[in-house]
């Protein structure tokens, strides 16, 4: 089938000239969320005229828990468990820049092996997250099989993460100065087996999901984000790369050992929902490759610099960013010389996608809402922090 809609998309006809509530002119205000199967803990006030979305106003804040304020009351180590709560599906990714920033503030050196372990865990977590995301993308488009398969295959990688860190979801594995514990002896072999199997499984996703003409009809040409808009609106991660911007923190500003590993930055030119869904799938291949390479290259040695119980930071500030699964995740850490941070600011990718989402939803069809919304990689819990 494909998209044969020859007509042009209406660029959001304006609300002017209509009544205050818009009811008389047939404009319906739907509040999608917070109790909506397709929203998460988040509200999207959508004004529809027939099948067209006239205006979409994102309204986050339903799961705000003041992580930034909480950080000011806890010391650098105690912040670790609660900082990964905003994004437990990618708990290594959200902790990574914090750990890097604390290392810079407190001036802690990291052993070489720990850097490799961090990269392996970060990449495994990226796959875990992207599978979770992909499964929900499947069920958003009504594809129940695509919901179940990634959830099952995710288990393979969660098993690896659990073997290394001891917890299945909230690993709390990275600490300033390395990682909590060394990998078990059986880990490299098991990791290779699982990762290679997982790489084969990825092809099945293409068969049933990406090559499915009905899926393509729903996503190709939907919600096109131009390169200029993507940059100016501050999009990150797969959303930015799907619009043709080759921007990956692992390449532009390599942290830990990413500059010693060989991988490619995935970009696509189209900038539509399909590209945004396809980029993570390609990135999973790269992640598996990176993890396998890191397993090969990993040296032996210590994994953690011994640390006092209450490390104090120097006066100053640090701004560290990494490429988490959803995009560029940055921590802005201000220290006043106490064992507790003076101010921690999380610049999370989900929060940065909100204006992009509002921009793309305007003028789209109501049926395109799930495919645009979820292709944004938007996680309400992470955005609210």
């Amino acid at each position, binding site marked *: 089938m494909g998209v044969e809609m020859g007509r042009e998309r209406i660029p959001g006809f304006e609300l002017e000239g209509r009544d205050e509530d818009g009811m008389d002119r047939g404009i319906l205000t739907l509040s999608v969320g917070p109790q909506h199967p*397709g929203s998460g803990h988040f509200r999207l006030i959508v004004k529809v005229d027939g*099948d067209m979305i006239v205006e979409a106003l994102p309204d986050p804040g339903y799961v705000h828990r003041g992580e930034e304020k909480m950080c000011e009351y806890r010391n650098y180590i105690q912040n670790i468990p609660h900082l990964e709560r905003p994004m437990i599906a990618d708990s290594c990714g959200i902790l990574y820049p914090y750990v890097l920033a604390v290392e810079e503030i407190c001036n802690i050196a990291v052993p070489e092996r720990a850097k490799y372990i961090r990269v392996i865990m970060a990449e495994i977590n990226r796959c875990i997250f992207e599978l979770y995301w992909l499964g929900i993308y499947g069920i958003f*488009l009504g594809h129940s*099989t695509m919901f179940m398969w990634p959830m099952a295959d995710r288990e393979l990688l969660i098993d690896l993460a659990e073997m290394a860190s001891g917890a299945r979801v909230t690993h709390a594995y990275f600490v300033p100065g390395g990682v909590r514990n060394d990998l078990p002896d059986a880990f490299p072999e098991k990791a290779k087996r699982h990762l290679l199997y997982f790489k084969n499984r990825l092809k099945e996703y293409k068969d049933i999901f990406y090559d*499915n003409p*009905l899926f393509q*009809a729903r996503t190709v040409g939907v919600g096109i984000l131009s390169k200029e808009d993507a940059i100016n609106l501050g999009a990150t991660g797969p959303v930015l790369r799907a619009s043709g911007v080759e921007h990956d923190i692992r390449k532009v500003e390599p942290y830990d050992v990413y500059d010693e590993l060989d991988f490619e930055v995935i970009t696509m030119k189209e900038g539509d929902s399909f590209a945004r869904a396809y980029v993570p799938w390609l990135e999973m291949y790269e992640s598996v490759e990176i993890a396998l390479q890191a397993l090969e290259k990993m040296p032996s040695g210590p994994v953690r610099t011994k640390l006092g119980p209450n490390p104090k930071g120097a006066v100053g500030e640090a701004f560290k960013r990494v490429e988490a699964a959803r995009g560029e995740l940055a921590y802005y850490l201000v220290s006043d010389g106490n064992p507790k941070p003076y101010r921690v600011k999380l610049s999370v990718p989900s929060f940065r996608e909100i204006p992009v989402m509002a921009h793309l939803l305007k003028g789209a069809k109501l049926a395109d809402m*799930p495919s645009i919304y979820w292709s944004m990689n938007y996680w309400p819990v992470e955005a609210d922090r």
Partner: protein
Amino acid sequence: MATVSEFTFSNFVKSVLWLLFWILMIVSLIVLPIIFIVLFYVPPPVINGVEINPYLLLTMLINPQVGAPLIRPTIESLFFRITVFPGFTFAALFATVLIFAERKTLAKMQLRVGPYHAGREAFWWANSLGGFLQLIADLLKLLGKEIIVPSGADKPIFWAAPAVLIIAAAGLIALIPVAPGWVIADIDVSLLAVFALLGFFPLTVLLASYASNSKYPFIGGLRALYQLISYEIPLILAILPIVILASTLSLTGIVEAQYAYWFILFVPIGAFVFFVTALAELERIPFDLPEAESEIVAGWLTEYSGMAYGLIQLANYIKMYALSALFTTLFLGGWIGPEFLPSIEVFNVQVLSSSEVSSIFWFTIKTFGVALFMIIIRGTNPRVKIDVLLRAGWSKLIALAFINVFIAVALLYVGVVGIGP
């Protein structure tokens, strides 16, 4: 009086027992006297020259052999046909099996187990059913839930919609021939009646959604209306070649016309179009946008809860059975297949002949196969968009259906099929 929040199992059992007590009271004090009075005045029915009176029924309890000659006349009676065999009970049972098959098949496709635990610890025999009791549990759950009618709803329409849907679906099964002579309403223009009954659904859905006084059902109802009416024309056009080839509008006649070759061999395009449109009429997964949960919550079903929702779902599955059966009847030769099963005899009196048993078997197997294919389609496809759907329905499917008509006419004139003019 216990409040809802203090729900305990003992309270539940108590309320069920209390209900049973009242039912028994009402039955013994009111219903039984009425029955006796009616029996006193109404002459008992006569089947096969035997008067069926209470004495005979009691005799049959002791000596079932007396009843054996009466079985065949009974099952040939209209009442039995409507209630039990080709009628409601059979369809409901088929729908139940379909629900279970759907859950198990989808689970297998998705690397899951599916219903598995229900009743496993309570009953030893539940082990062999592999979770089939889950359906009973679901039924009980639906029965035990409060039916919430939203304030401002149009109550009569809101309550009537599930019943109307069941009635329309039941009307469909009345037209489908299961075996030679086994059809409830054998009318000459049964195909047109099928179209008329299919036209009921969009209207009911729209009314139900409008009656809910809520936004999501309203959008869902409109979508259902657009989708159902758009796919009705390809559906009608896809069947036209069958009518041309069989030269009759009666479903029984169409099946009999396929004694040698199934029509799917001549008009595969028509079969494809019919299958797709049947999926759309059923609102099943590639076309379930009236219930698209990620966009409009549950579409026109949003405000329905409890048994009202259950009945709508039952109507949907009965409709699924009816459309699969229609596909079988129109394209797969209905009941036609080799005779190989023995006849069924009770006390040496033949109840169903060998050919009838085989026919029923073939019909059931084919229908189940078609339904299973619908389930597999559900497992592999996402939902489509309404504009794509309407566009495809009106341009591609109608074009295919027209081609299909020309193929049928050409086949006829070339002389491949039919008698030819």
